[in-house]
């Protein structure tokens, strides 16, 4: 197990070196969208609005942190993996090396985790400056860590499955973007009819934003959502291993 983790670090190492060369531009790029949401919806539109007993700004910040972890972690691992597969064509090098599929999947997910955490923490700091009324506890950071890892594994899986840049951008428009807006990031799911709510509970981001918001606003910890998030992580991990196993020898 220790050897496999060491190999995962080796896989991660090269992505980390890449990040070291380009971290600032990557960080800035990943922050534009959530910052716009934060300013437009949170600060501009919702400063005066009260929502479930909180100011809308306080309500929306954990949601925006969740969506930042979602999109940055997903893109962090998926885009690098796609570059490795289609541009550098260096992904085969991992398959030719004497390392396990476990190490490849985990190693490739780590860059998404790190990029997701960096961006989420940056947004969190901005949010904190705008509305210092929510709590950032150790539990909040733990859930954030889990979210980033789950969505990063999601990125690994999708990058393994999709065969071109084109299909990745279609996936981004058809799956990722709607999830960004619908999964309880900007509004409470209680406002939706039963059917709509049930549909959104099938999506992982819903559980991430629900859990992060509950912790930040000091509400009861939603153990079910937390558990579902863990299950999604396990699902993405095993599916990635399976897809890779099918594609390689």
């Amino acid at each position: 197990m220790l050897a496999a983790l060491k190999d995962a670090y080796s896989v991660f190492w090269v992505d980390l070196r890449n990040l070291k060369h380009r971290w600032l531009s990557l960080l800035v790029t990943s922050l534009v969208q959530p910052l716009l949401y934060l300013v437009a919806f949170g600060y501009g539109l919702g400063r005066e609005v009260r929502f479930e007993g909180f100011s809308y700004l306080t309500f929306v910040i954990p949601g925006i942190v969740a969506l930042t972890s979602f999109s940055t972690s997903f893109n962090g691992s998926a885009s690098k993996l796609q570059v490795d597969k289609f541009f550098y064509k260096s992904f085969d090098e991992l398959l030719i090396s004497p390392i396990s599929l476990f190490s490849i999947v985990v190693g490739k997910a780590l860059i998404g985790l790190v990029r997701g955490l960096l961006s989420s923490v940056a947004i969190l700091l901005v949010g904190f400056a705008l509305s210092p009324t929510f709590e950032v506890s150790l539990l909040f950071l733990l859930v954030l860590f889990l979210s980033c890892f789950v969505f990063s594994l999601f990125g690994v899986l999708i990058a393994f499955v999709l065969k071109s840049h084109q299909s990745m951008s279609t996936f981004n428009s058809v799956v990722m973007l709607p999830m960004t807006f619908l999964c309880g990031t900007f509004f409470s799911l209680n406002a939706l009819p039963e059917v709509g709510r049930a549909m959104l509970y099938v999506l992982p981001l819903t559980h991430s934003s629900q859990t992060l918001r509950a912790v930040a606003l000091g509400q009861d910890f939603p153990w079910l959502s937390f558990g579902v998030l863990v299950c999604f992580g396990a699902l993405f991990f095993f599916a990635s291993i399976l897809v890779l196993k099918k594609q390689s020898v």
Partner: protein
Amino acid sequence: MDAFIVTEKLTKEYGAIKAVQDLNLKVYTGEIFGFLGPNGAGKTTTIRIMTTLTKPTSGWVKIGGFHVVKEADKVKKVIGVVQQHLTLDRDLTVRENLEFRARLHHLEPTERRRRIKELLEYVELTDCADRMVDTLSGGMKKRVAIVSSLLHKPKVLFLDEPTVGLDAQARRRLWDLVRRLNSDGTTIFLTTHYIEEAEALCNRVGILHNGKLIALDSPFELRKKLGLITVETLIDKETCCKFFADRAAANSYVQTLPPNVKTVVIRDSNLEDIFVEFTGQKVGDA
């Protein structure tokens, strides 16, 4: 001689397309073996199967005694692979790329540094160690790609079309490197569609055509089978070749040619003649 690579009825099908058909082959320890054939002949597919990247449809390959599907982990430790396309991370330095590969092959830090230094000296790229790969010339990138596959001291090195896209000078330099590696004990398996490359480098050549091995021997033996001397004539704008065991036989044939034959060339036969004769096709034709 020990066979280091053995294939038995190796077949790969993609739907109705048979990329490799019933390939039976032995590559001996210490030799430079060349796979010659036009694009689409099945050369890369064969290399991908041998290097654990593609599963064969049927048949098997053993490398160093290990089955490439059932014992892929053991095979990976004894092979080095240089793919046709560059697989380096071009936004990183030469050293970073080499360090990455060394880590993947579990080299400890001291060993890693020693090996990288040693290999960069071997290919005369020490001064380029901290340059971004993207800023190197094509020939230099290829040399980096080759040393990046040598860090773990593989027993056999696979080179898929190693000199495609290189200028004449870079190509010759790479040939020298391949010869040097071979004389230092590495068995080489290379594919090429350049006749002169196969002739210059290979102890033995297998000619692959439409996924089938149609000839297998040393370049000299293959030429001998065909006839060492070729008489090339141009009759009504069509080139025609005839093959003879020696110059005397070729000369006496030329004496018998009718007067309407304008151009006559008597030369040594080459692998291209063998290829055309066996397949009815030129090597460059895809």
